[in-house]
């Protein structure tokens, strides 16, 4: 292209496609009779049978249709740039929506609804060399927006699947501080069945009917990140080389498992953070009044338990030194390189100390990603 010689590469892309998903059990369109529903009449086991699962005669495939437009660019042989916009519409989602227990069988798998993921993915890279320094740097970022477009019967446990909400988002009560005075304990909207005390969490009566119940629950956050990003850096200078890979996410939340978050639940231990709690002397402590038994605060999900799990993590760092060629020759080798490498070296997060922001929700008590240091020696003959 005349006058645009600095443009080494420029490509526009567009794609459109559909894929199906039948990831659900077999024969779900038939009412199956399960054997093994036994009973021991007179002490002798008799075989029994009953329908224990439900069926759906009109079950179909789940279908995802993706539209994507993108742009790839390389300028001055140094600066690369990629941008993508995508719009993925997933229809006939295969899932079991809640049914009234009056139905008498577990919820059947149905084609429940549709959701849309839209987003932008950007990548910028730069590579150059200057006075013996070779380097390239690569940064990528993705923005995603997830929204359920339609859903047959909303499912509202501590996770919500309903129209207008992010898929499987956290759903519960909005925490508005703690009961600090006897007057509040007496006169704030009532929580049926829960004898609240001073220091317990106070929830917002969203509909203003004077009672805190299931109708006062709201969207509290999502564990699907809104923004993810990564950074790749490679440097080489004379005998030294350095590689760094960092990644992170933001606009993302986690609900910590009860035993991890609440002190002393079900005979579990307490974390040090639990010391920062409400007592008459420390009314502004972070945690509410400590209960040794389960309490209402611990039983229901509220915004108090929804923790911002944004993070940046140095996933991988490697620093190497290659011995001068003369030394290599002396030892009759082609190349000798010694290096130090570290995995998960640093993590910057506001999440509770000791909990891995990359862990799955409700499994934070499992092993986190471990920090690893490696010293190594590469010898090429």
């Amino acid at each position, binding site marked *: 292209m005349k006058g645009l010689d600095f443009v080494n590469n420029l490509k526009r892309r567009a794609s459109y496609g559909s894929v199906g998903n039948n990831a659900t059990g*077999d*024969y779900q*369109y*038939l*009412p*199956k*009779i*399960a*054997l*093994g*529903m*036994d*009973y*021991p*009449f*007179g*002490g*002798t*086991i*008799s*075989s*029994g*049978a*009953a*329908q*224990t699962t*439900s069926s759906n005669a009109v079950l179909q495939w789940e279908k995802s249709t993706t539209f994507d437009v993108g742009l790839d660019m390389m300028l001055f042989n140094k600066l690369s740039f990629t941008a993508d916009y995508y719009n993925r519409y997933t229809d006939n989602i295969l899932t079991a929506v*809640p*049914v*009234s*227990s*009056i*139905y*008498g*069988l577990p*919820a*059947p798998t149905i084609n429940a609804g549709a959701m849309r993921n839209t987003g932008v993915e950007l990548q910028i890279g730069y590579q150059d060399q200057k006075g013996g320094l070779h380097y390239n740097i690569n940064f990528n970022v993705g923005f995603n927006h997830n929204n359920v477009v339609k859903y047959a*019967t*909303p*499912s*509202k*446990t501590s996770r919500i699947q309903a129209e207008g909400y992010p898929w499987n988002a956290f759903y519960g009560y909005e925490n508005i501080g703690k009961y600090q005075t006897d007057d509040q304990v007496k006169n704030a909207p009532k*929580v*049926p*069945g*829960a*004898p609240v005390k001073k220091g317990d969490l106070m929830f917002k009566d969203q509909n203003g009917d004077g009672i805190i*119940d*299931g109708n006062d629950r709201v969207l509290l956050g999502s564990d699907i990140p809104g923004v993810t990003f990564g950074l790749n850096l490679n440097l080489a200078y004379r005998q030294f080389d350095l590689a760094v890979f960092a990644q992170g996410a933001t606009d993302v939340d986690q609900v910590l498992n009860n035993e991890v978050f609440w002190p002393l639940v*079900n*005979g579990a231990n307490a974390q040090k953070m639990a010391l920062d709690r409400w007592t008459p002397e420390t009314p502004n402590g972070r945690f509410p009044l400590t209960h040794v*038994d*389960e309490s*209402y605060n611990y*039983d*229901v999900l509220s915004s108090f338990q929804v923790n911002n799990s944004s993070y940046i993590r140095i996933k991988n760092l490697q620093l190497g030194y290659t011995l001068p060629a003369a030394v290599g020759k002396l030892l009759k080798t082609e190349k000798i390189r010694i290096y130090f490498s570290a995995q998960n070296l640093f993590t910057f997060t506001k999440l509770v100390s000791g909990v891995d922001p990359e862990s799955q929700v409700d499994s934070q008590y499992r092993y986190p990603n471990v920090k690893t240091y490696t010293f190594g020696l590469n010898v090429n003959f």
Partner: protein
Amino acid sequence: MTIHRREFLGMFPTLLGTIALGSCTNKYLSVYPTDQLTDVSFWKTENDAKLALTGLYGQNPTAGPNKDQQWESHWNILWWDLMTDNGYSQFPWDNIQVMGNGQLSAANPGRNYYGYSQIRKCNNFLQKVDQIEMDDGKKAAYKAEARFLRAYDYFRKVQFYGDVPLVTEVIDDPAKAQLPANPRSDVVNFILSELGEIAGILPVQNMRQSQGHVTSGSALALKARLELYEGKFEDAMADAQKVKDMPVYDLYPDYRGLFLIDNEAANTESILEVQYAQDTYSNNIWQHVLPAKEGGWSSISAVQSIVDAYEMSNGKTITDPTSGYQVNKPFDNRDPRLQNTILYPGLWFNGRYFDSLDASSPDYHQLAAAPRSGYNVLKYSKVVPASLLQNGGENVMVIRLAEVLLTFAEAAVEANKITGEVYDAIDKVRKRAGMPPVDRAAYATQAKLRELVRRERRVELAFEGLRYWDLKRWDLGPQTLDGPLYGSREGSVNPQTGAVTWSQDRIKIEDRVFYPERKYLLPIPQQELDANPNVKQNAGY
């Protein structure tokens, strides 16, 4: 465009294939499983009817020893009293504790009896079994059993939730399951009319003869129970009378032995019971009831209130100054049922004097597997090797003759038809337990006899799951289900003699709150409220 003949013929098979796929989808693409039964291929033979009937009673035995998915379970019968002034459930995950202390809510509803899986199974059975050609008498009996099990489930629902949807046919479309509740009176009338009809179809047999199948006596005894609960006293008397008159039932001579697996074959007192079998269909009763030293978990504790309810062996209450009750020897000369029901400090048990009071004892009440109140419960317990703790085969009685006798007595007292027969019924129960007959002079009035019948019912049937419904119909919640819950006094047990030296301190277990506006009903679970916009939460939740 022109198509040459040869090309057209070449396309033909493809076109044909497309048409076939489009029009005969069911025939060619619907595959029926060859290794599983479906509701379509089932319901053909008498054996299918038998399989389905068994499926109404039972559950998959591999789903654990709680057996809480079958028609009824020890997990209910032995636990229900723990939400009353008889007992305490120390483990929150047993889901009974909140039902006792009032902390239950839609989000944390305790035990859930709102499910309709049993109702659906029964309805499906009743709709499909007619397709099967088999002996008519047998089929009628099978159907009567299914109707009983459905009525029993509705009985629990009415007791726990009041108004509930009355569903008597299979609901095919989940969307049509969003039903509003029927008034409880409709459901009660349905249960009573069903039980009345099937009592005439089912055989007159005791549980040994029927091997655990429900019988005519089961139907009449449940009917009498519900009539008593509903204040239909004359009906309750009449139905209890019919059961009393059935020649197949007798009180088992030994109260403690009645609850031991060893005597099951001779138990003709049982009118309705849940069946278990070691190895193939076991329960975990021994694990839950036995004290810590015997490897148990002490999941079920008795509390002070029931201990105080037992009379002295002379028939006087401990509050009577002439009873001979000694505050510091509280277990001396008591109704023998006390030591046959409750394991208290200083009682000889399994080669030792039971000690829940000393901090060094394995049964010390503050230890995890020890009774929080200081009192274990002995009903159904038996010292067994560890391998059997969760592999018990003892059946659990849901209704037994003693209850029917006391139902008859209470109904007669409430109907104010106090005859010699009423005293006889109570005396029969007391005599078996080793108690003197009722002092007819002291308990001559309706009010006095009411007091006695209620006490008798409480101690005779303790930890058999009836106390909550008793308190409900007597409306004694404010007096019995509110305030602090106490266990034994602290003290020390002499390991040589079993003598207890008591301190003044009493074990306080928890504070309970009774909410009268709840009318003794449970909350409809939140998931049901979310799934069914037509259902209304019970008052007070």
